């Protein structure tokens, strides 16, 4: 049987701090700053030794802790208009409490997720080739457009000065759909050689969708997108 070592991985600096507090059974409202700071720094050293990549915010938290600690060591002079060390500590405690609540809420969601995964309802009927019934959302369209742009960027090498208007592209898209029920999303952009043209074409497409003159549909979520021509009577109805 394989022997595996599981390293506790912390999502963020608050997570690590919370872990240290729980591990040492400390009171959030009365954190022994000196102890927690040295524990915290030990973890950071460990991260370094393990070559773990950790975000800068871990260092921000470390400096906050050291700051609180140093303020506590210094004699407090009331005339100085600065926050008392307790204030920093209270603020930190409030943040930790807040975060802890959401962590708890997250584990409640996790429980629900596990229960829900074991309950099955009827599955959607698997769509056939012609069953493009899901209306693509704006995000889907933007995603698809980004792929088009990405591909175009590899191809486009020359700079062409062109003046093209959205209205022209609207007409061209409608022409493309004249004798067809649908075209593939990518097809609308074929032959568009500049980024500017691609964007104008995309705007034209969005405008047509807004006017409900065409429909962008998918067979399944995140699937490819087809642009369908609206039926004549639909356009007439407005």
């Amino acid at each position, binding site marked *: 049987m394989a022997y595996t070592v599981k390293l506790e991985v912390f999502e963020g600096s608050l997570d690590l701090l919370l872990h240290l507090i729980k591990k040492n059974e400390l009171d959030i409202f009365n954190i022994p700053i000196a102890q927690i700071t040295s524990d915290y720094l030990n973890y950071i050293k460990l991260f370094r030794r393990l070559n773990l990549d950790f975000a800068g915010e871990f260092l921000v938290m470390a400096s906050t802790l050291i700051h609180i600690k140093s303020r506590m060591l210094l004699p407090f002079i009331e005339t100085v208009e600065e926050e008392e060390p307790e204030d920093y500590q209270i603020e930190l405690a409030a943040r930790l*409490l807040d975060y802890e609540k959401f962590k708890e809420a997250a584990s409640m969601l996790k429980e629900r997720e596990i*229960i829900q995964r074991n309950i099955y309802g009827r599955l959607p009927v698997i769509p056939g080739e012609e069953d493009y019934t899901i209306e693509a959302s704006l995000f889907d369209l933007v995603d698809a457009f980004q792929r088009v742009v990405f591909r175009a960027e590899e191809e486009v090498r020359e700079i062409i000065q062109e003046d093209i208007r959205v209205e022209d592209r609207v007409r061209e898209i409608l022409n493309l759909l004249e004798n067809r029920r649908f075209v593939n999303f990518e097809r609308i952009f074929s032959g568009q050689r500049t980024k500017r043209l691609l964007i104008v074409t995309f705007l034209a497409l969005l405008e047509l969708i807004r006017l409900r003159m065409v429909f962008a549909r998918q067979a399944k979520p995140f699937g490819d997108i087809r642009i369908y021509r609206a039926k004549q009577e639909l356009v007439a109805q407005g």
Partner: protein
Amino acid sequence: MEREELKNIIECLLFFSDKTLSIDKLAKIIEMDNYDKIKGAVEDLKKEYEIRNSGLQVVNIAEGYQICTRSEFSSWVRKLYKSQTTFQLSLPALETLSIIAYKQPVTRGEIEKIRGVDASCVLRTLLERKLIRISGRKKLPGRPILYGTTQEFLRYFGLRDLSEIPSLEEIKPPVSG
């Protein structure tokens, strides 16, 4: 319409639908505007399944009803559908979701302040899974995007509506004595 007949019609609809049906939707299909009567019939049906100790159950999630299998029998259903992908949300995703569920509409900055970690990657995943949506923009400099939960969120966690999650005050942190 006889109560028994109404109940049977609803049973057919809840059994056959691949998503939850709201009382509103049921009323439209049955062409009946007595919502209370429909709701009563759905609840009767729900109880019947419970009393009969059936393998099926009438669930009430995402502001609607559907007939689903009971969790005790999940392993058998899974044998039938081996290929079904088992997707689970990561802990950061769950934490971010819970913040959005409680604080919505909420900006990315507000989420990051609570978790102390960059949230852009998690937010993208949640948007793709359609568990959250962009609900608007906050009237602040830079007009930051506001996020909220979706119907899919309710469905995914088997929640009737948002009021079914306990309030933040009710959540007792295990530590902090």
